């Protein structure tokens, strides 16, 4: 190896250590894809639930003149809430599995200073947003829940992108943009939800996988 190559590889090492010590780089594109698929499945179930509800509500109104719609609505929202929670947990677990696998492959520890920093920075805006949205639900303002999820999630991702692969910020921008547009189409939350958490995650995951993991 000549002198120039030696110095170049030294510079390369320096850059790599700076990256590795300040950013969590094991985040796998496959995690994005799997989370996106979970979200799409969740959105499909939610859509079916709403359709069923519309049908039964019509039947109910016919027979009872709408006496029990409040109980029905409560049932609907608790069912949708459960679907959302299950979707969130499966998405979290599946994305963890792929990122864990990647950390094994690249031989970087899954838990360390960088992972902790990433987690704190994504969690704080999301927990704040979650509490805010629960308060909205408590006050019966259901329409703002879907755009709120997208907005707060986008802010969390954008905030966390400083501590992981830098392209992650585009996912954050995308979610924020969808959330903002959704504010003007309040009834269509589920479609925006599927686009933001489903399709956008899959696009992001494919891109990251293609860029960092293909070979």
């Amino acid at each position, binding site marked *: 190896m000549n002198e120039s190559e030696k*110095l170049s590889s030294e510079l390369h090492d320096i850059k790599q*250590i700076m990256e590795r010590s300040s950013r969590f780089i094991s985040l796998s594109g496959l995690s994005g894809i799997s989370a996106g698929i979970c979200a799409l499945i969740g959105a499909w179930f939610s859509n079916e639930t709403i359709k069923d509800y519309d049908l039964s509500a019509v039947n109910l109104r016919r027979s009872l003149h709408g006496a029990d719609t409040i109980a029905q609505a409560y049932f609907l929202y608790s069912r949708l809430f459960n679907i959302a929670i299950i979707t969130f947990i499966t998405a979290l677990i599946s994305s963890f599995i792929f990122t864990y696998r990647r950390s094994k492959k690249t031989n970087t520890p899954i838990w360390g200073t960088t992972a902790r920093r990433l987690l704190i920075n994504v969690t704080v805006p999301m927990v704040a947003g979650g509490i805010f949205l629960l308060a909205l639900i408590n006050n019966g303002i259901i329409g703002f829940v879907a755009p709120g999820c997208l907005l707060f999630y986008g802010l969390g991702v954008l905030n966390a992108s400083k501590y992981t692969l830098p392209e992650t910020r585009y996912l954050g921008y995308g979610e924020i943009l969808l959330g903002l547009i959704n504010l003007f189409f309040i009834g269509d939350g589920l479609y925006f939800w599927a686009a933001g958490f489903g399709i956008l995650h899959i696009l992001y995951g494919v891109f990251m996988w293609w860029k960092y993991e293909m070979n």
Partner: protein
Amino acid sequence: MKNPIENLNKTFDSRIRLGIMSALMVNASINFNDLKELINVTDGNLASHIKALEENGYIKVQKGFIGRKTNTLYSATKTGEKAFRTHLDALEKIIKNMN
């Protein structure tokens, strides 16, 4: 023109020391174990290079505890940051001149 090789710092003439300084440039402080994992060296090896950097005044050591376990934090001093930057600039210049 001055030869940029003169600006290369002898203290940084080791991959491990370069690694330690690189990590400390982008982090406010790092503990011993994280540093060890990052650079992939043995305890003894890392400790001796840390000592050399410390003696040059390039890094400072802060001993603390997490519960009962010792937790030693390292961070770069102003002198260390400046010296490392000069070294990097020199490296870059040399490579540019070679190509």
